[in-house]
Every structure is written in C-alpha cells, then in structure tokens.
C-alpha cells in the first residue's frame, strides 16, 4: 500500500490523485496544531454519529427533582433548570452544529465561487454588477444581516442556515475574483483558449480548481464565525427554538442561572470555543496542505 502510494510512476488517474491526497495527509500530520484541530473535528463528528449510544435517553428527558445539579458521576456536565442532562444535550447538539456548518458551507461556497469567478473572468459590466451587489452584502455586519433575514423569514434552524449562508458568500466571492484575475492572465489559460474552449469550460475546468484551495481554507476559517453566528442567533431566540439542544440557545438559557449554576453556561460555551478553535487551527494547516507549490 505504502509503496503504491509513494511510487515514482503513477499508472492511472486514480493512482495520481490518491498519491497527491497521501502527500497532503503527510503534510497535515506534520503540522501538529492543524492535526490537533483535525482530530477534534473528527471527534466531534464521531460524537454526533454515536449520539444515540452515548446519550440513549435523548436530549429532552426531564426530571424536575434533579434540576440544577452540579457535575457528578451520574451527570458528567450537571443538569439544567428542567433537570435535563447537559452532557446528553451537548452530544445531541453536536449534530445541530455540524449540520448548520456543513449546510452553510455547501450553500455559500458554490455561490461565492460562481459569482467571484464569473466577475473575474468576464470583467466589464458583469464584474461591476456582481461586485456592487457583493459590496451591499459586505457593508452590513454579518450578524445584523443574518438577524434581518431571520426576522423576515421567521425563526428556526433552516432559516438561520439560509440567513447565515447569505452573509457568508460575499467574502468568498471577493477571494475567488481576486484569484481569477491573476489566473485569467496566465499562459495555461491562454493555452486552453487557443484550443478553442468556451468560457464555461475555462471557468469550470481550469479556473475553479485553482480557486478551490483558497476557498476551502477561507470557509474553514469562517466556520468558527458561522458557528458563533448560529449560536448568537440561538442566543437571541431567533435560531434553534426550545427544546432543541442548540449550543447557543443552551448558553442563552443558562445565563439566567449563571451565578448559581456556572456549568449551565460554561459547558456549551466551552463546546463552542473548542469547535471554533479546532476549525481555525485546521483551516490554517489546510492552507499548507492544499498549496500546490508545496508539493
């Protein structure tokens, strides 16, 4: 397996790709902080997948006799004001956090890439129209814009995802446009133009692959902000609605009992902090992994 992955001569397109992936993996392993971030994220995913095993009672099992219990052997992270086990809520909440961040990435990255590469490649009035639209979105603070959208669309996780995605694409579009402007002038794009390729083919097959690494890095680094915005919306009561165990909403309700029962706010707060930190560390390392110059 190892000899196959490090072979001097690659024998198929799949082999070549696998080998590039393998060298990327080695570079990620070599960067300890980034690898730590990667491990935390993998751990988060495992926890989310194994939620029914880790917390079989579910996230909404109430027991008013056991309300506001501090962390103990039975309740690792304590219980909240309705006697629900906070560990179980954090575990089930991981699913919501992952779903929000993945959905935002899946919606915002393609929009940003499409707008940015089109503006950069075509230039002229296309560029002007798309980038002024972009400026309008960029001129609002992200959370305020998301608040506005949620207020218009109605509270709920689905609408929060749409609202956050609408605030997340403009920086990606700017980045993709800047990359496209340098790539557009390069000889390899000139070469494919004189092979007779049309604009759509040039953008999709030749420009987008060059923009993807920086966009992936950017969105990974943005992920912390996205989680915080989602938590902020939950905190303000505009995101996840009770009794959904969303971390921001948990933080918000925990605030009322913060002086008497610190664990109510501290545990979801730590979970948000750890996940944001992991995304930032991983995103930073991903830059080195995806840079073709380092291969």
């Amino acid at each position, binding site marked *: 397996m190892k000899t196959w992955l490090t072979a001097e001569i690659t024998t198929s*397109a799949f082999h*070549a790709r696998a080998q590039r992936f393998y060298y990327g993996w080695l570079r990620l392993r070599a960067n300890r902080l980034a690898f730590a971030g990667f491990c935390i994220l993998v751990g988060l995913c495992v926890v989310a997948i194994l939620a029914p095993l880790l917390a079989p009672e579910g996230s909404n099992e109430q027991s008013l006799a056991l309300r506001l219990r501090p962390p103990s052997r039975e309740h690792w992270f304590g219980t909240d004001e309705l006697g629900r086990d906070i560990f179980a809520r954090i575990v089930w909440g991981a699913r919501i956090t992952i779903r929000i961040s993945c959905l935002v990435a899946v919606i915002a990255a393609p929009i940003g890439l499409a707008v940015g590469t089109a503006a950069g490649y075509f230039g002229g009035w296309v560029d002007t129209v798309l980038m002024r639209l972009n400026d309008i979105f960029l001129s609002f603070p992200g959370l305020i814009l998301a608040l506005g959208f949620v207020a218009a669309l109605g509270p709920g996780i689905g609408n929060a995802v749409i609202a956050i995605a609408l605030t997340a694409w403009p920086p990606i579009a700017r980045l993709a446009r800047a990359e496209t402007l340098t790539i557009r002038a390069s*000889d390899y794009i*000139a070469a*494919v133009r*004189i092979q*007779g390729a049309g604009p759509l*083919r040039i953008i999709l097959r030749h420009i987008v*692959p060059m923009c993807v690494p920086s966009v992936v890095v950017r969105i990974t680094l943005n992920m912390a902000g996205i989680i915080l915005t989602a938590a902020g919306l939950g905190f303000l009561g505009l995101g996840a609605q009770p009794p959904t165990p969303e971390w921001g909403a948990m933080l918000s309700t925990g605030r009322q009992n913060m002086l008497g029962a610190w664990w109510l706010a501290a545990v979801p707060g730590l979970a948000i902090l750890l996940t944001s930190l992991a995304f930032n560390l991983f995103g930073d390392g991903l830059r080195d992994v995806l840079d073709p110059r380092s291969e």
Partner: protein
Amino acid sequence: MIAVQELRVRFGQGAGSVQAVDGVSFDVAEGETFGLVGESGCGKSTILRALCGLNPAWTGAVAIAGAPLARPPGRAFFRRVQMVFQDPYASLHPRHTVNTTLMEPLAIHGMDDRDRRVAEVLLQVGLGPAFRYRYPHQLSGGQRQRLAIARALILEPRVLLLDEPTSALDVSVQAEILNLLSDIRAARGLTCLLVSHDLAVIAHLCDRLAVMQHGRIVEQLDVGMLAGGRTNTAYGTSLLQASLGYDRRLARAGIEEGPI
C-alpha cells in the same frame, strides 16, 4: 500558408498608448519555417498572439491556411493553428496531470480514439507512457516543454506558432527541444513561425527570417545570408555581431553611439 499584410497592434488608448506592431507584412510558404528575430519589446511575440487570436485588437489583413483570420477565430481555426509558449513553468495547468492536459483539447473538439492519440503523441515527443499520470511539478523543465509541444500537436495542426520555445530552458536541454521540433516539423510537414531573440536558434530551425526593431520589419534574410554574415542593414549587422558573443570593443563602440 501564412499571409500577413500591414499588421498593426496598438496597446492602450490616447496619449499613453503604444504602437507595439507597426505595419508588418510577410508571407510564409507551406512547409517553410519563418523566423522573427529582434530584441525584447520589438513586437515579435505580440505578432504571434495576434495571429492565434489571443489579442483581438489588431488591424490589417491576415490569412492563415487560405482563410482570413476572424475575430474571434472559430473552433475549426484552432485545429489548424496551435502555439507553443515560452515558459513551460507557466503554460501548464498545475492541477492537471499530463493525461488531463492532453485529453482536454480532444474533448473540446469531440475527437475519437482519445486514448490512442494521447499515447501516440507522448511517444512522439519522447515522453513515455510512464509520464502519463504525473503532475507538472513532477516534471523537469525540458519534460514540461515536451508536454507543451505534445499539447500543441495533439490536434494535428498544420501551422505551429513557436514563442521562444527554448529561452526558458537550460542550455543542455535547449538543443534537445530544438532537435525534437525540427524532427516533428519534418515528420508532419508543419509550417512554423518561430519567434526568438537568439540567432543561433533561428539559424538552426528557419529557412527565412525577418529582423524586427520597434514594431517594424527592418529586413528579411534567408538563412544562408545569415550564416554568411551578409546582412543588409546596420541593425541586422549589430544584432548578428551581438549574437557572436560579448566583445569589449563593440560594447564600447555601442556605448559611444548610444543604445541601438
């Protein structure tokens, strides 16, 4: 095969504009290799970019393979005319394997039998099947330029435009690439237009050449005249002498006369 009449290319508008090519005319017969030589900035590469449709801002009359050059040129044009770029480190897509790079033109033109065509052209430029699934960063400069040549050849063009194909390479590799080009030209009966500032390269490949200065053709020679040192203009002579190597006496004379 290539007929260029009064070609002019202007960059920019108004007072800051530059007339990069100023009324250039020449003809290249079928199967012939024609050289354009001159110092940096004399407009020789600009002519090539205009001829292959990369720069639409030209005036004049250009006919290639009997058909006038349209703006933008149709897809069929690119099957007749292809170009090899100067710098193989810039002209290959860093995220495409050799195979992807060569398959791309075949896919654009909907050609059949792609697998065989790729294998054949790789053999022809001296890159074996072992190179087929490598990325450009795994290739040396000479291997990259061979790949760039393969990419130009895979559409089986009749005209090849060469933009200083060896100037970004090591001296030891330059000769290999030049021999490869002259073999391929002979095997396929290609018509070539070669741009270079290196008279040795021109003398090796070309039948005839034009000396350019400041966007104009100063004189046209055939390669025998070049070899015999029989140039007709002062500029041609000084270019030829400069190519023979550094000469302290000439350099001093050049300083006294001012830059050419």
